[in-house]
């Protein structure tokens, strides 16, 4: 029983599932807000679309970590990972998983507020985009951390 590989798989699940949930929820909050704005003024569709897309990046980061683990790292071990390395793989998935989840939801809230800016003053859309981008900082830092943790586990 190769428990190390099982743990590595669990790492992929954490990275992909948690960050994906965060992004889905964040983008969902924005989509609801944006629908309300567009119901009043369909001309604002483009600007609200950009804001709605912003919280989606956390899921992408998590997916990238997961895919790197499955497609690059595990084959390097021949899917036969010792227990300690497996645990390391699991831990590598945690930063982006947890932070992607939390920051995705919060970025969704900020972006939804930015959609509120667009509703009242469409010309100030970029300020809302910058606010939403600020939350992304921590998702990016956790992505970089997960990446380096991942790349440093070698057979």
């Amino acid at each position, binding site marked *: 029983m190769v428990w190390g590989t099982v743990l590595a798989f669990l790492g992929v699940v954490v990275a992909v599932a948690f960050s994906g949930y965060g992004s889905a929820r964040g983008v969902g909050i924005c989509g609801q807000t944006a629908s309300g704005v567009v119901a009043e003024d369909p001309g604002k569709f483009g600007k609200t679309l950009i804001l709605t*897309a912003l919280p989606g990046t956390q899921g992408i*980061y998590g997916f*990238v970590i997961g895919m790197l683990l499955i497609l690059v790292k595990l084959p390097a071990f021949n899917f036969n990972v010792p227990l300690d390395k497996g645990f390391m793989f699991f831990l590598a998935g945690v930063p982006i998983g947890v932070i992607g989840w939390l920051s995705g939801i919060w970025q969704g809230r900020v972006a939804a507020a930015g959609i509120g800016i667009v509703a009242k003053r469409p010309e100030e859309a970029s300020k809302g985009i910058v606010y939403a981008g*600020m939350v992304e900082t921590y998702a990016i830092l956790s*992505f*970089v951390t997960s*990446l380096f943790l991942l790349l440093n586990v070698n057979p």
Partner: protein
Amino acid sequence: MSVDRMQRVALYGRQRDREEILRLVQSLAVLDPETTVPPEQGGRLASELDRGEAALNREIVALEHFLAVLDRWHPVRPNLIEQFAGVRTVLTEEEFAALAADREEAGRLIEEASRIEASLADLSAKRQDSLNRQAALRPWQAMDLTRDDLAGTRRVQLLMGFVEARRREELAARLAERDPRLAVITVGADGTQEALVLAMPRREAADLIQAAVEMGFSPVSLPPFAGTVAEALAREDAVQADLGREEERQRARLAELAGERRRVQALLDQCLSERRRLETARGLLLGARSFGLEGWIHARRVEELRETLTRSGHPFYLEVREPAENETPPVELVNGPVVTPFEALVQSFSYPKYQEIDPTPAIAPFFLIFFGFCLGDAGYGLVLSLFCLGLLWRLKMKPMGRKLARVFIFGGLAAVVMGFVTRSVFGFTVDLPFPFHIDPMKQAIVLLVAALGLGTIQLFFGTFLSALPALRERRFADALFGQGVWLLFLSSAMLAVGKDAVGLGAYGGTIKYLLAASVIGVILGAMRGRKGILQRILAIPAGLYTIYGSIGFFSDILSYSRLMALGLSGGVMATIINLFAGMAWKAGYGVGQLGGAAIFLLGHAINLALAILGAYVHSSRLQYLEFFGKFFEGGGRAFTPLRPERKYTLVVKQKEA
């Protein structure tokens, strides 16, 4: 490369020439009015302006109503690109003047449109009535009695009504008990209800009806109809057909009117411009027979204004002076053609104050490099550049849109260069010629160091820029103790930590001395600002606190690691898409190839869109926060001259094909 030079201007003229002079000033779009009108002067012109504005408002409302009617029945459907860029009627100056001049024709159009709108509403109501009548009659269509028949005979009364189908038996039985002469005839149904005709002796009708009602029978009275029900229904069909044809005719007429949309739009914009002039007139200085308009003007356009006014033949007096110390002129950015598109980034954030430097030439190269770094794929960059080139060519956009399009064209080219460095084309590793290569996956650390290095360069440059005002005024000591020692401290601190990595390990001693010297320099700089020996000693903790604040600087540098994260995630995503597309393709049987191509196109399209979004947001965020934070204050006011309103039209010099 700067904030354009502004001058304060005061224009005086005769009140009787006021409208004409204002119209000329507006057509040049050269003057940003700024007057402080003493309250007592505001009253004199006010009543005339109020009347003028009220009349204009009435006209504007009528014109907008015309457009609203057209939009309701004959809307213009923008395609996807136009939804983002906005749809406006494009006219040349001559076309605009010709269309806007004929106010009477516009008046006729408005009247006709209102009439058509009213008649369409009327037709719609009539059709609804007809449909309602049909709905009421339909359950009874099998009944072969006419309306006259339903009146009954001398001794028989007929009554129509509904009862729940499941209660019909009970109703019939009970009524038969009370009077066997009563007949219950089913003629139709309406959902769960059965349509019945009760035939009963007139003398007992009242009691029987009451009994029937108690048992769940609901009498109805039908709308008036001639002949049998079936005939009436057919007649309603004919009525609806007529109404339909009339509606078609009205709509066709409305479609013809839609061709005159441009005329109304041009007139609307002209009325809006007129109203803007009246609003400006409220802020005029007033003499007995003269008026004064104060404001700001580009220094280089003063002659243009003077010439235009001279040519008009109206007497005027123009007074021009430099802005005073305490005044804050509005700001317009002027840059060379390559840098100008990046003004869009500054405008989105905040205009510089009049005395500040224009940060656009500073952010242009950095933004480009960062954008290219984040997008990092030759194929993506090419697609982006070509797409924006196409947009610029085919679509009439507002200045901001054009600037952003050009920014993305340059950004795409920067991404192509980065794609050459990382050997990445649509996620595939292609051997492209370039002096050096970096493999993002295997050399992630190198990419990170590069990103942080770029950040260090930009932040040092920003600190240097904050010293520019002091340098320009030859206050070298201020610059040295303000920014110079700070930069020295940062450099020596970084070298002290990383000297081995860059191969300067041998200079360890020198670096230590430089570090010590710069710390002393920072503390001295803090002391410089104070007077008196006690104050100076108390300034030492302030100096040490500044040293401690270098942590903020280093965390700013770390913020630049996002460039590497974005570049890497985009690249890896592209590789994964290619992997999936390849797996699908290999599955074969035609379906596999189709799936593979679909995955490739769709996946890269989505990835491209997200990568562009991320690259733009984060590259510009780095400019706004980290870079601007070092030297830029902002909060300036944009130059907004009195200009013709162009809400519905776009007037161009000449039409392109």
